[in-house]
């Protein structure tokens, strides 16, 4: 089983002066919340003795090792750090990540890939689906409940109209939605123990994956600043102002 992404957790997001992206230096990064839920689900499956081993995977620079360690502290057995840094990391998107995951899934002979439904910094909601497509595996996305039944997975999905229950064959890809579970906080003793668990370093090239992006970010802008309001004396003035602004 795979998992987590590192995402931005800044108190306030600021756009870089050259408008090529958001400021990430010095900003606290932590595991994407939906990926925490994915890790929790994987660990729960292991605790119920339904899966043998949980492998935590993350793609990125040196920093992501901390995220993998958190996953190990939550109960994953070992980690794989796919090293992507610098310019490659800035342009790393769902397509490249899903190619990496697909390659790893084959290499590790994984039966189940669980990830968060989307990262909260880019809101793409694509990696799980793309990974399944590349592997030609069934997918259970927006999962709010996952039950293993022999060699099949029953997944309850959160959809616009309510809940949809599907049954898919393993191996499969599942993406975790908010209500799937409440992730545990890693205990201090487990964090200490996790330091002894192995994290293996791999490069995308070793997996035969080209991480160059086919997308180019043209610019990133902040949303328009909120203008201060205007006070008017009478209802007549209010109506005039609204007409002026083209609102009515």
């Amino acid at each position, binding site marked *: 089983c795979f998992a987590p992404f590192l995402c931005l957790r800044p108190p306030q997001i600021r756009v870089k002066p050259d408008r090529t992206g958001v400021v990430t230096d010095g900003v606290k990064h932590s595991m994407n919340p939906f990926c925490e839920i994915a890790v929790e689900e994987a660990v729960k499956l292991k605790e119920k003795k339904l899966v043998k081993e949980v492998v935590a995977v993350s793609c990125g620079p040196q920093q992501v090792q901390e995220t993998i360690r958190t996953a190990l502290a939550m109960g994953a057995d070992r980690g794989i750090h796919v090293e992507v840094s610098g310019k490659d990391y800035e342009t790393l998107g769902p397509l490249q990540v899903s190619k990496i995951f697909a390659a790893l899934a084959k290499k590790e002979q994984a039966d189940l890939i669980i990830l968060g439904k989307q990262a909260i910094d880019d809101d793409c909601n694509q990696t799980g689906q793309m990974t399944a497509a590349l592997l030609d595996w069934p997918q259970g996305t927006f999962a709010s409940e996952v039950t293993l039944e022999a060699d099949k997975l029953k997944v309850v999905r959160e959809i616009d109209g309510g809940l949809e229950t599907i049954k898919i064959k393993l191996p499969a890809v599942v993406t975790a939605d908010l209500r799937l579970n409440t992730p545990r*906080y890693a205990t*201090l003793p487990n*964090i200490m123990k996790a330091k002894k668990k192995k994290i293996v370093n791999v490069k995308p090239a070793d997996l035969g994956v080209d991480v160059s992006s086919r997308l180019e970010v043209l610019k990133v802008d902040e949303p328009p600043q909120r203008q201060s309001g205007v006070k008017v004396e009478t209802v007549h003035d209010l109506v005039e102002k609204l007409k002026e602004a083209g609102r009515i």
Partner: protein
Amino acid sequence: MRLPIACFPLLVPHYNKHTTIVPIGGVCLNLRKMDQVLDLHQEDFDVTVEPGVTPKGLNSYLRDTGLWFPVDPGADASLCGMAATSASGTNAVRYGTMRGNVLNLEVVLADGTVLHTAGKGRRPRKTSAGYNLTNLFVGSEGTLGIITKATLRLFGIPESMVSAVCSFPSVQSAVDSTVQILQAGVPIARIEFLDDVMINACNRFNNLSYAVTPTLFLEFHGSSKSMEEQVSITEEITWDNGGSDFAWSEDEETRGRLWKARHDAWYAALALRPGCKAYSTDVCVPISRLPQIIVETKEDLIRNNITGPIAGHVGDGNFHCLIVLDPNDPDEVQRVHSFTERLARRALAMDGTCTGEHGIGLGKRALLREEVGLLAIEVMQGLKATLDPKNLMNPGKVL
């Protein structure tokens, strides 16, 4: 004209959410937007926070580190506010109250100067340097200065947590068990008492089915190996005291439901008499006097026809009567008022305190005098006069 200042969040939300009481008018400061977690030092187990940070917010921030701040007053209050009111909670029996867990404070004094009570940036785990200014401000309820940063002691999240419930035939047997559990050296994390009226209210409010009889809710923290030992020693003690239906669980969901029932006690009590208001008492006595005070208090409640389910942190000798009353019934209001005075004096007579957690505020100023004596009050007044000669800071409170 100098306006007095009251600081918000100050009082642990109890009457209603976010209320500051300003008897003579003045300026209320809302520091909620100062909400940064600063200077986390994982290996030193300390962190500094601004007033807008709450225990839930801090613990969420810390969750990748395996550390937490365990003082848990039930409401998700401001940590600096908790320092100002010397807050406590269900975990105090194991982790202490704010008094023991604040290492340093940044305080803005009445003249606008900024004080670092233990020295700027300092955070040793212990010190004997000079007067203990940090603890002067802890519990000062905003009367000596405004807390703008607090450096807090953190703890490791324990490997394992187990919760348990046990029913008892009497208040005496429940409290006796508490005393014996502590004497046995079990490092119990939470030990909460609910009387029969409280359990009944909780059952109705949360759709539970605990036996309607004095009950203890317990929680154990520690390594997985030590859990079994802690639980079995405790179970034996409860058994010896006539306890029954000892049930325990390590499962997070079950534990969550148990403690939600306890934290919902306020609302469960209110639900007993819809349309009424609730008023919580708060006294604390040496643990050995707890059986006597609770028994006498219950008799007082019954004699005076007052609805007062009891919930308490019996491990600290601290309990609350969650009195539900009709504020429009002057007779009932009077009866409740007299009851609370008697209760506070009962606690004082047993070498206890008129307030274990909730503070003095306005209502207990006279009781504070009785508790500490005239000389101590004069010393306190001297300190107040030195730090706030114009009486700007939350005037009329505490003294």
